[in-house]
């Protein structure tokens, strides 16, 4: 199992404000000097991850104090130059919120070039509220996503003459990427899923499929992926086709690990702080999916504790651990928890680790990354494959 360090790069000083932190949170809450210091600090931590032999994952969000990386490719362009060996994962580019997919292809090519072929590319649908900020059309969202996907892959892998593209949603007279990416035909591709059915499309394509903070649902996501992969490719996917994202707090002392976990848990409190109307956006999800969600009820999508109860946003660190969203403890304990979770969900080869989250300080993050890289990563690298479980679809959606 490989580890990828990830931070949402929050502007946490503004979390003290009342009310929502996303979409309509005014920027006067941001002190730009402090924001710059924080951004540099998070980049330093990414560079440390590189030095420690960990890989790197970056995301983006917009109009939110929970994430200051407003362009995954801008952040990765910096890291392409600042780091030496880490694989650099964009997870992801919110493709259907981007108005110009050929520009996305250029960014991919440039970052891959700069990094000497270390880029990995995930295209994501993104959470509904992002479409309010991008103001792209919510309807036919995934139709646009897949056309942009096809166009970008055609552009980055093109070794022939330039081509024109007249699609349903995108139109270009010519396409020439200068530079073109180092990795051919294209950098490794990723997708994200939170249900078996959404994982299937990535299984079919053979892309690496990650699921975020989904706890036990990861099992059905991975099963959906494997089934579709086997159907399309006639063999079992290797575990490195699958990834799981969780918050990790590791320290030489158990009490210290839990103290840090409390600071990191603030991420879970802050992330859902936004007005109810932005939980879903009219036209963003298909009518049938909205109907199923409504009928299933509000708590259906919440992760489950090991006793079957619903994980509450303000639950304890132990609750988050029970639900599989946090791994917390000494290196031995964290290794054991991850190894057990790996067995429980049927095996995955990529741990997308929030090594910094919430209010966790720079010093604590440095120690957390160092402990994980020195004490846990070598053992995870040796983790033996788990025989995949025979699990049928059980997730909602």
């Amino acid at each position: 199992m490989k580890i990828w360090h990830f931070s949402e790069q929050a502007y946490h000083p503004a979390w003290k404000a009342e009310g929502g932190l996303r979409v309509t949170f005014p920027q006067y809450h941001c002190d730009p000097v402090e924001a710059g210091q924080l951004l540099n600090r998070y980049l330093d931590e990414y560079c440390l991850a590189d030095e420690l032999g960990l890989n790197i994952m970056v995301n983006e969000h917009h109009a939110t104090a929970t994430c200051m990386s407003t362009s995954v490719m801008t952040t990765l362009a910096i890291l392409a130059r600042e780091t030496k060996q880490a694989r650099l994962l964009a997870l992801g580019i919110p493709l259907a919120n981007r108005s110009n997919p050929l520009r996305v292809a250029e960014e991919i090519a440039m970052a891959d070039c700069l990094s000497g072929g270390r880029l990995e590319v995930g295209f994501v649908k993104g959470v509904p509220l992002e479409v309010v900020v991008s103001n792209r059309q919510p309807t036919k969202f995934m139709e646009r996503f897949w056309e942009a996907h096809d166009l970008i892959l055609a552009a980055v892998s093109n070794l022939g003459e330039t081509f024109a593209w007249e699609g349903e949603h995108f139109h270009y007279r010519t396409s020439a990427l200068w530079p073109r990416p180092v990795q051919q035909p294209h950098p490794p591709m990723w997708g994200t899923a939170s249900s078996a059915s959404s994982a299937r499309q990535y299984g079919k394509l053979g892309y690496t499929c990650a699921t975020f903070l989904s706890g036990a649902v990861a099992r059905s996501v991975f099963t959906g992926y494997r089934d579709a992969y086997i159907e399309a490719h006639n063999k079992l996917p290797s575990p490195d086709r699958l990834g799981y994202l969780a918050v990790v707090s590791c320290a030489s002392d158990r009490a210290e690990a839990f103290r840090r976990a409390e600071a990191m848990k603030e991420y879970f409190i802050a992330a859902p702080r936004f007005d109810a109307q932005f939980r879903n956006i009219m036209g963003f999800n298909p009518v049938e999916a909205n109907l199923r969600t409504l009928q299933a009820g509000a708590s259906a999508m919440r992760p489950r504790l090991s006793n079957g109860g619903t994980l509450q946003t303000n639950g304890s660190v132990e609750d988050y651990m029970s639900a599989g969203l946090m791994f917390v403890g000494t290196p031995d304990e964290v290794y054991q928890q991850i190894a057990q979770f790996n067995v429980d969900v049927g095996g995955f080869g990529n741990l997308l680790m929030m090594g910094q989250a919430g209010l966790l300080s720079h010093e604590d993050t440095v120690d957390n990354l160092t402990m994980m890289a020195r004490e846990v990563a070598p053992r995870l690298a040796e983790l033996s494959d788990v025989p995949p479980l025979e699990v049928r679809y059980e997730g909602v959606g």
Partner: protein
Amino acid sequence: METAELDCLNFGKLDSVEVLGTGIELFRAGRGAPLLFLHGIDGLEGSAAVLSELAKSFEVYAPSHPGFGASELPAGMDRVDDMGYLYLDMLGVLGLEAPLVVGTSFGAWAACEMLTKEPARASGLVLASPLGLKTADRREHWVADIFMLSKQDLAQRLQVAEPEGPTLFEMSEGQMLRALRADEALSLFGWTPYMCNPKLADRLHRITCPAMVVWGEKDAMIDPEYRLRWRDALPQARVSMLPGAGHRSHADKPAELAEQIGQFATGAA
């Protein structure tokens, strides 16, 4: 899709009509001169009260817009401009030469899109709380953004009275499906530019039939400036204010609105 049973529309017949391969849900009721009624953002069922009043003196034809209710959405349709053509084709299918055309809110926009293309296809035009003209200019906004309001806030703002009918969570599956289809269609047609066709103002001069614009005096969805925009864009229209009515004047004051429409029709005939 199947046409649902809607108890609120038990005074007429709800079925569907095929318009060039697209199934359009159509409610018919009453006897008299033909009247085409185009519903607002609250769907066909949201107009039941005024349809009941209008059916006392008109032969009412009230479709669900494409993508709303049980109406299909043609694959290439994504603008109210497209909808204008569909309704002209529907008039042909129904054998309606020039009915009185009444549109409320979003439906008033659809009525304008239809009649700017073939102005002769209406004996008269009534626009109640119309949308469709530019709703904003840079930082100046004249129409509340339904996509930025919570469902509860929106339900409150649409009319003066307390919202009637079940909330989303209290609905039957059939009702839920209609509400969710309406959301999707509103997003398709009204997301951006918000609830308008920026070209409409330059086309409205083509409408030459007698016209009346009715505003709810207490419309909380619009800024008074928006009424002036409509007055300038359709200067020949009679303007009427309904006291005590909100944006859904057809729900707040159905009898009064129907009476105004009746009087207008008599004058227009």
